[in-house]
């Protein structure tokens, strides 16, 4: 690719990589949240 400007004027967000990282963080958050409830309820099952 040829030399580009740091970021394109048409791109609304100047840090696309950061956006992807933030979405990954959100995914981890959701997964941990669900697993946490699932796992705790298995370990501390009310019989």
């Amino acid at each position, binding site marked *: *690719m040829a*030399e*580009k400007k*740091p*970021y394109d004027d048409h791109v609304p967000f*100047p*840090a*696309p*990589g*950061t956006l*992807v*990282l*933030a979405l990954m*963080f959100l995914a*981890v*958050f959701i997964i*941990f*949240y669900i697993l*946490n*409830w699932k*796992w*705790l309820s298995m*370990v*501390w099952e009310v019989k």
Partner: protein
Amino acid sequence: MANQTSDFRTCPTTGLKVHLPAQTLIRINAVTAVVYILIGGILALLVALTRWPAVHLLPADLFYRALTAHGVTMLIFWVIFFEIAGLYFGSAVLLSTRLVGIVFGWVAYLMMLAGSLMTEYTILIGQADVMFSAYPPLKAHPLFYLGLILFAVGALIGCILFFATVIMAKAEGKYSGSLSLVSFGLAIAAIIAVVTIAGGAAILIPTFLWSVGLLSHIDAPTYRLVFWLFGHSSQQINVSAMVSIWYLLAALTVGAKPVSEVFSRTAFLFYAFFINVASAHHLMVDPALTTPWKIWNTGYVFHLAVVASMMHALAIPASIEVAQRKKGYVHGLFEWLKKCPWENPGFSAMVLSFCGFGLLGGITGVVFGTEQIAIVTHNTWRITGHFHTTVVLGTTTAFMGLTYYVIPLIFQREVMMPKLAMIQPWMFAIGVAIFSIAMIAAGGYGVPRRHWDITFAGAPYGFEFSPTVFLLMSVMGLGAIMAVLGGAIYCLVTVGSVFFGKKIS
């Protein structure tokens, strides 16, 4: 007024004008902080090796003594001495101005030193085996409380000098417009510190009077509530200071500038506004508080403080990405990240602190702060694991990273043993992550915190933990050894450089 130019030197790398009397104060506070992390680290090893069932090093009484000393030494003395150094740095040095009231700076330092020695001494002689939270009816020797009060008043004087310096600098035209973002973040930390110290005084002074017999009674639920006004907000000082250091290190290591000043400043303001309401997460199983209050707080209000951290978590990597893209690293989504100065301990410490605090500390904090979860995990190792990912992996690692800049800038010495310095943040952070995750997992099986012997040997009523627990506790022990080694390298490199490093003229 002492404002002669002879009191200043100009830093050859940054061009900042450094006020020499302020520099001496920064040095002495920072060195004292490092001495305390050294002591706290030795205690950490003793505590961790006792809780590792296969080793079980200390007898019960010494374990609780070491645990009290570890909590107080690290959470209060290491962190706050470093923060006071940071406040003087963030005001006088970053604004290229003089520190107002140098004499009071020395008074503050001596009070903090005397107070901390007093408290450490009472713990050491076995007169204060009450843990750092010191819940009544546990009662310590009066000197334990008096030492903490002296220390807090000293720290308060330090905060006042910070504000006075900032105001004076403005009046003298040392900066125009608003404060730089880093100084602004530190100002937020100092504001929260004032609230915190007021809370500390409100609870420690009566408790002190109770310990000398002048008050007959301390109401335990009130103590717990007010204690956490102090205990929780003090963690928010740490968070604000840590985030300010992230911005500073991003600027120093890759030349990052805040993408949006308004956005980042708003996030800092959120800390100041919403921090105290989050203290409820310490009291989720406290019978003295009502359920609606707990649900209102943990279900709704405390997320406002979380939002602030999420905003910084977006702003900081974005500022790094923009700075790196300007340098031409524009290929793909992540070339900018690959081309970051990973071999620079200042940079790696910042990223490790950032990721550790966000991914481990932040997520576990939000999840465990939910009321229903808190009921199951309260007083287990899940909590201890959680706060070691925030205040150790987050705050402490960030402070370590900043130290690699403080040594050349303030001590005017080159960092010795650069290879060791390079691996230091990795070793420390990965060790902390390992032992904290193991703690969190063991806590999920119900392993209690502050417990000398979970096998209950010789007790009339035993309890069998899942065998997995013993595996997890061994992993904890190994991670702790790695973290302590990383901490030892930090002490070695900093003390070595400060006293024997090559002088920078």
